[in-house]
């Protein structure tokens, strides 16, 4: 089983799998986001308290979720690299960092745009907002640590270790709404069984979640291909693949 796993995680096979998966992921992302956008913006009923302003949730919630998911992917693949010495783990971690950081910025920006009409301010020093900002700083730290080393292999390992240490922050962000009296509204979707949202609002949101996940996966596989090519540029199969 392990030899199979190692063969699967070898650079050429990762490169091939990513190449095959990218168009399918992109197509799925496009479909799910298109349905979510149209249904969410045009057909879902306005919220009884927030009116039409709530519709930014269709961008905000998925990007906030993916900011955490991207971090977990980075930390877990980095740990895989550290523990089993699988080089491709670092490649995926390096590819995931900028995407996750972008989603964090998107979550912060859409969140503050949403906060302006609802809370009367763009920014509040509230546990959830602050911890999301810390997440962004962690992303920046991991990325700059990786690029600070002249030896890329060392940078990979150092960044992976920092990402693993920073995982402590992820549950804090996720549960901050429940632990502290936060200005931010509580979870509406993740309550299994009985979401606090009517189906007409929920379906577009779930579709956007799925679409954002697929979009993340598609961009990740594109970036992973770039990483693989860059990392393996001395090897014969890359030259053959490029020519």
């Amino acid at each position: 089983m392990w030899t199979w796993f190692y063969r699967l995680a070898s650079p050429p096979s990762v490169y091939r799998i990513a190449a095959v998966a990218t168009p399918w992921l992109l197509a799925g992302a496009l479909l799910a986001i298109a349905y979510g956008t149209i249904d969410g913006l045009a057909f879902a009923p306005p919220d009884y308290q927030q009116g039409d302003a709530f519709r930014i949730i269709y961008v905000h919630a998925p990007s906030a979720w993916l900011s955490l998911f991207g971090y977990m992917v980075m930390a877990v693949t980095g740990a895989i690299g550290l523990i089993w010495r699988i080089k491709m783990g670092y490649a995926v971690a390096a590819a995931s960092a900028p995407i996750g950081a972008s989603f964090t910025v998107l979550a912060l920006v859409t969140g503050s745009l949403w906060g302006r009409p609802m809370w009367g301010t763009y920014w509040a020093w509230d546990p959830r907002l602050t911890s999301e900002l810390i997440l962004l700083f962690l992303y920046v730290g991991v990325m700059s640590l990786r690029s600070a080393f002249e030896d890329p292999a060392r940078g990979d390992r150092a960044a992976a270790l920092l990402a693993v240490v920073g995982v402590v922050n992820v549950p804090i962000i996720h549960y901050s709404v429940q632990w502290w009296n936060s200005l931010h509204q509580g979870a509406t979707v993740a309550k299994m069984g009985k979401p606090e949202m009517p189906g007409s609002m929920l379906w577009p949101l779930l579709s956007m979640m799925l679409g954002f996940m697929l979009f993340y996966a598609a961009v990740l596989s594109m970036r992973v291909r770039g990483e693989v090519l860059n990392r393996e540029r001395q090897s014969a199969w890359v030259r053959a693949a490029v020519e």
Partner: protein
Amino acid sequence: MSGVGAARAMGLVVRRELRLGFRRPDQLLQPLVFFLIVTTLFPLGLNLRLSLLREMAPGVLWVAALLASLLSLDALFKSDADDGTLEQLALSGHGLTLIVIAKTLAHWLTSGAALVLVSPLVATALAIPTSAFPVMAASLALGSLTLSWLGAIGAGLTVGVKRGNVLLSLIVLPLAMPLLIFGAAATDRAVGGTDATGPLYFLGALCVFTSTLAPFAAAAALRITLE
């Protein structure tokens, strides 16, 4: 394998660090002077409005202490890594984790503990009442020790980086933010005369958490940069 036991080896490392530290007293004093200077900047920037200053004092004190302890973190492993001592210590057969614990504790004694000793002076200048001093000192002691553990991870990761000082701050500060929140909250409550045990317990928990896990992470970081 060397002939000395683990506890004795740790004691030797601590003693060596302290001796080296006290041979260069200016390097020990610089962070403390920085601490004093930063806290002087705030009253000047606030146009000496004392009422405002009194409200901000716990936060000012904590931010200044955090920045001052960051200054000395860079030196935690740097000189030993540069002249090869760290590799010798790593090869001594005592395990890098023990060495990290000893070095970090010694570092805390010369940086964090010194900050705690100076803090009453700064607190008086910032108009913090004397009744709040015990809580303030306790929160600073717990917080600076936690910061030393976090800083050991950061210093281990950046020891191989040229001009890694800014990067070190960039890495450690986000991780240290909970310290600032609970530390300033404890001091603030003590100033206000209310019960500060809640945030102090949180600081204690963070201190225990980092004391138990950070040495392993810092040793792993050093192994990455040393190998």
